[in-house]
């Protein structure tokens, strides 16, 4: 990883203002957003938006043409171009021809994208940002750190300092006074400006209308007071029908700022009169800048469904720690990573894509229904194809991919760790490995992997069989979880097999963009798991379950191995996560909870894949309550624990504070028992609690179920 990039992460993490402001906001946002969407069927709404936007991006050319005709018929001048430079030249030429000396701007990401201000200022034209946040960062000479709240990284003290230095001495760090000061200073600029420049949130082809959304009212002034109004609109803002404004306008403020509607919405469909009675000179620039190319890409077309609400930033466990500047200068956060790869260059996303921990929170809240984590993986895959994988990674995968070698090495490691392991934990590792144990203890590698232990378990002979997929953690670190699975299923009259040919689920390779490796892992596992005719294929690891159920198919498709797909689908049909199968067996009356169990309170951590991909999050809660346990929910129960597979090794600086926050929330819940359905989260959280000396017991749900069922 590039040292400058690492340094920018470290700088952000050590900025208490930044982490404080963003951390507080992320908590308030989640509650506010939920309230704003009360009584609304979010799934239906976002499906509608996705359809409207997807249909539009299939016909950009036609819609741009239709928009142009409708707008020109009303007297609007429309300029269409694919070239950002042509946009800048057009606006500059217009300004010079009309003798424009000063310009007021309302917030526009498209103008940020093409660095318009610099171009105009170089020609001696005064350009004034009027959105408060944009004005602050313009004065401070910075770039926006958030698409909706550009100055969220600054404290009121820093803002005061900027005002004192750049505008007028004597300001105090009192927010209402600072806002009033800005109003007073910007008002004459609105009144005196010769041109107003805005963006647009929506552009309607059938009527040639643009829709502009603001809270401050600056877009109303920008589009009302100067005699010339120029709106710069990216192609992705186009929709066909006027009525389709409704779903977008319903979702945008709720997702962006948890408001039912912003203070102001302007729908401009032609030049309205100026204050002196002359008609407004209205120019709308439709800018392509790779949007059409994107719409022809079968994977990335989806990203054009973005309505720029920035909710993917607001729910991101990484963004709230590092803020936007680590991501770059224009578009930030999850969608920003994708847009940067396209509007700037694929290479520009090389570092920032690694920030994504793949927790899937953004996918759940995206009103454009964009699978952002999946698209980031696709970036990773393309980067890996284009640049090759780093050497170390290649070496690791060559081991993981060689089943026999991998297992031999794990056994060797179990012996090699002896000097460091004590009561099942490794608390310190020497030198270059020390950062792995700085914030959490690691589990000791089991003396005997599960693949050997299961052979010693005396199972009843049953006609119904389940094949168990161990995955690396259950097999080598937590064989007791596997034993719990066997005990429970035996009670229901199901015999558990452990197909010896199984290997790594391929998630590490997939999440690093090494799809060829991942696909081969999948093919090996499919062969092994389908060898014997079993009724179920069970895993106690959600990441493995998702791999078996979904990713094998996706990986094989991605590398064109279509011949392997029927078997992959056959396997997917049989795959179930452990808790879901237990629930089914309880409902069928094949498993019963013991009477008179000694129970306690428990709290539950939602593992990312378990909740957001498998949607099984309520099942273990329900089972444990049936067993007599009392659930105490922790704050942010479904926030990532910071494990993210190899993320914790690649970006321990970010993983550690994510974990710390999780640990605090767990302790605050006050239950003596924490249940989790993922061995990876168990490893991260149990190790973190051990380092803090906490007495809270951390178990896989399977372990507690094994004791609770008869």
């Amino acid at each position, binding site marked *: 990883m590039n040292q400058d990039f690492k340094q920018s992460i470290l700088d952000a993490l050590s900025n208490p203002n930044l982490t404080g402001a963003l951390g507080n906001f992320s908590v308030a946002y989640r509650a506010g957003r939920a309230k704003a969407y009360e009584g609304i069927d979010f799934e239906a709404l976002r499906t509608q938006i996705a359809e409207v936007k997807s249909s539009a991006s299939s016909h950009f050319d036609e819609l741009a043409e239709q928009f142009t005709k409708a707008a020109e018929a009303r007297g609007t001048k429309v300029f269409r171009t694919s070239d950002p430079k042509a946009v800048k030249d057009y606006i500059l030429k217009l300004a010079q021809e009309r003798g424009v000396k000063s310009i007021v701007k309302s917030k526009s990401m498209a103008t940020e994208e093409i660095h318009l201000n610099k171009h105009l200022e170089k020609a001696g034209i005064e350009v004034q940002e009027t959105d408060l946040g944009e004005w602050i960062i313009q004065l401070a000479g910075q770039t926006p750190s958030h698409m909706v709240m550009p*100055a969220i990284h600054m404290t009121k003290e820093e803002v005061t300092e900027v005002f004192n230095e750049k505008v007028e001495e004597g300001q105090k760090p009192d*927010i209402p006074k600072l806002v009033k000061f800005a109003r007073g200073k910007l*008002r004459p600029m609105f009144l005196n400006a010769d041109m107003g420049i805005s963006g647009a949130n929506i552009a*309607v082809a059938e009527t040639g209308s643009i829709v502009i959304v603001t809270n*401050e009212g600056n877009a109303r002034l920008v589009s*009302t007071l100067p005699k010339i109004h120029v709106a710069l609109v990216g192609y992705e803002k186009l929709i066909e029908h006027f009525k389709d404004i409704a779903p977008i306008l319903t979702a945008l403020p709720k997702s962006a700022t948890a408001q*039912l509607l912003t*203070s*102001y919405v302007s729908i401009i469909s032609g030049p*309205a009169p100026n204050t002196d009675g002359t008609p407004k000179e209205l120019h709308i620039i439709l800018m392509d800048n790779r949007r059409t190319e994107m719409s022809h890409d079968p994977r990335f077309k989806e990203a054009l469904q973005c309505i720029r609400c920035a909710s993917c930033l607001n729910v991101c466990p990484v963004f709230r720690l590092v803020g936007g500047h680590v991501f770059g200068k224009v578009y930030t956060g999850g969608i920003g990573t994708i847009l940067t790869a396209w509007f700037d260059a694929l290479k520009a996303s090389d570092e920032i894509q690694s920030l994504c921990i793949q927790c899937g929170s953004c996918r759940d809240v995206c009103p454009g229904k964009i699978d952002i984590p999946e698209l980031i993986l696709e970036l990773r895959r393309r980067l890996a194809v284009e640049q090759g994988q780093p050497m170390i990674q290649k070496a690791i995968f060559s081991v993981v991919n060689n089943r026999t070698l991998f297992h031999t090495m794990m056994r060797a490691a179990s012996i090699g760790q002896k000097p460091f392991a004590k009561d099942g934990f490794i608390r310190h590792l020497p030198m270059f490995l020390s950062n792995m144990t700085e914030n959490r203890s690691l589990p000791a590698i089991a003396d005997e992997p599960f693949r050997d232990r299961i052979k010693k378990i005396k199972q009843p002979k049953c006609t119904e069989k389940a094949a168990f997929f161990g995955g690396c953690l259950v097999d080598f670190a937590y064989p007791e979880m596997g034993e719990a699975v066997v005990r429970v299923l035996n009670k229901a009259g199901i015999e558990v097999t452990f197909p010896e040919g199984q290997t790594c689920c391929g998630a590490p390779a997939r999440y690093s963009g090494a799809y060829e490796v991942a696909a081969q892992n999948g093919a090996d596992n499919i062969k092994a798991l389908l060898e014997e005719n079993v009724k179920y294929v069970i895993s106690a690891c959600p990441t493995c379950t998702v791999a078996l159920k979904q990713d094998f198919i996706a990986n094989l498709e991605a590398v064109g191995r279509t011949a392997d797909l029927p078997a992959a689908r056959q396997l997917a049909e049989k795959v179930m996560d452990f808790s879901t199968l237990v629930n089914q067996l309880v409902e069928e009356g094949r498993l019963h909870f013991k009477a008179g169990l000694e129970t306690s309170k428990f709290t539950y951590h939602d593992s990312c894949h378990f909740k957001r991909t498998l949607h099984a999050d309520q099942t273990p809660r329900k089972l444990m309550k049936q067993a007599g346990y009392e659930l105490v929910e922790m704050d942010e129960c479904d926030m990532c624990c910071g494990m993210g597979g190899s993320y914790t090794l690649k970006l321990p600086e970010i993983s550690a504070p994510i974990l710390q926050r999780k640990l605090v929330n767990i302790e605050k819940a006050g239950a003596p028992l924490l249940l989790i359905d993922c061995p990876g989260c168990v490893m991260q959280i149990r190790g973190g609690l051990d380092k803090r000396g906490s007495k809270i017991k951390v178990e896989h749900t399977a372990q507690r179920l094994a004791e609770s069922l008869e």
Partner: protein
Amino acid sequence: MNAILESSALVEQFKTRAEAVSAQVERVATKGQALDLIIRLLQQEGVEDKPHCYAVSAACPLWDQVDKNNLVAAVPGLKFAVTRELAADAKVGISQMEWALANTGTLVQSADEVDKRLVSTLPLLHIALVSTAALLPDLPAVLSRVDPRKAAYISFITGPSRTADIERVLTIGVHGPERLIIILVDDLEVAA
């Protein structure tokens, strides 16, 4: 009866939602009462015939139906001929809206005439008149009624101007009004 129930439910929802975004909502039965209320409000606000104290009003259909002279006599600083200079110098702006949306507490206006935008944006207080019968349930309802082919500039206003750009602290009154008073008038004809 159902229609009346429905309409009172809409009024309730509108009031709740508009107040939730810091607007003040008043409801009067007649145009005469609306006039009295406006006079009282302007007097309370200290509207006078001198700079920084004016009230400016855009053309409102209501004015054609009441005796405007009462207004001017009671409030000397009230101006009906709006210019950008006067609006920029005014304390209060008055305009009439075509629709209101109950589920967001929003006012909607077909605002091609620039006066309508000046008086609702530049002064610190905006008084908005709207017919109670012009209450619609939501966004789709109004989008099917406005015609962008006829209206070049359609404004939606939901509460006063606001920002949270500094430390996410909600602050009312940035570039637009810091207060919004909405007067629902029961016997006012629907403007659109």
